[in-house]
C-alpha cells in the first residue's frame, strides 16, 4: 500500500468536538483509523465525505456489535494497526 503522510487515529464518538476537528484535518495522502468509541461512526447513517482511506479497529467494532463493515472501510486487527503506524510518516491521536 502507498505510504501514508499522516495517520489520524480517532477514538471519540461521532459529533465530539475533536471528531469534527479530525475530519477537518484530513488531507490527501492521509489515512483515518477509528478506534474505541469512534467506531460508532459505522452505525450512523450520514457519512461525511472522506477522501482518504478509512480503517476501523475490528476488536472495537465487534465489541460494540458493529462487525458488519460498510463498503469503503477496511477492518484491521492490532497487528495491522501497528503496521499502519509504522507506514505513516506521522501519527496524530485525536
Amino acid at each position: 500500500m502507498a505510504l501514508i503522510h499522516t495517520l489520524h487515529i480517532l477514538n471519540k464518538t461521532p459529533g465530539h468536538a475533536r471528531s469534527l476537528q479530525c475530519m477537518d484535518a484530513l488531507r490527501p495522502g492521509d489515512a483515518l483509523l477509528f478506534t474505541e468509541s469512534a467506531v460508532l461512526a459505522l452505525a450512523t447513517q450520514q457519512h461525511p465525505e472522506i477522501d482518504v482511506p478509512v480503517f476501523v479497529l475490528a476488536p472495537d467494532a465487534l465489541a460494540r456489535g458493529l462487525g458488519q463493515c460498510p463498503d469503503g472501510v477496511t477492518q484491521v486487527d492490532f497487528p495491522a494497526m501497528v503496521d499502519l503506524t509504522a507506514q505513516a510518516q506521522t501519527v496524530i491521536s485525536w
Partner: protein
Amino acid sequence: MAATSLQNYTLVITGAPYSSQAPQTALLFARAAIAAGHTVDRVFLYGDGVHLASALCAPPSDETHWASEWAGFLKNNAIPGVACIASALRRGLVNEAERKRYELPASNLLEPFIIAGLGEWVEATVASSRVLYFHAGD
C-alpha cells in the same frame, strides 16, 4: 500489507484505567508491536494516565486488573514505565522518595513503574521513531 521497517515506539498514556479504554488499547497495541519485531522504548504516563501506576487498585475479581497486566508486560519485556512526576504528585501517586520529601503517610507506586520528569518524555520524542498517544475517549 507491504512489509514495513522496524520502528522503536514510545507510548504515552493519558487516559486513566476504569474511566477510559486508553490503557487497554495501549497494551494490546504494545503486545502486537513487540510480536511484530518492533521495539517499545518506554511507556510514559501523563495526566490521568498516572493512575495506571497505582499499587492500590483493587478492581472486582472478574474484571481485568490493568495495572497488574501492564506491570507484568513491562517486566517481561524489560520496558521502562515512567509516570510524570508533576502529574503523579498532583493526583496522589508517590514513590518512597517523594513520600519522604513531602512527609506523606504512604507511598503507592507499583513496580516496575518509576517517577520522573517530562524530560524523559522530551528525550523519547527525540530518540523514538514513533511516539503514540493513548487519550481518554468518550
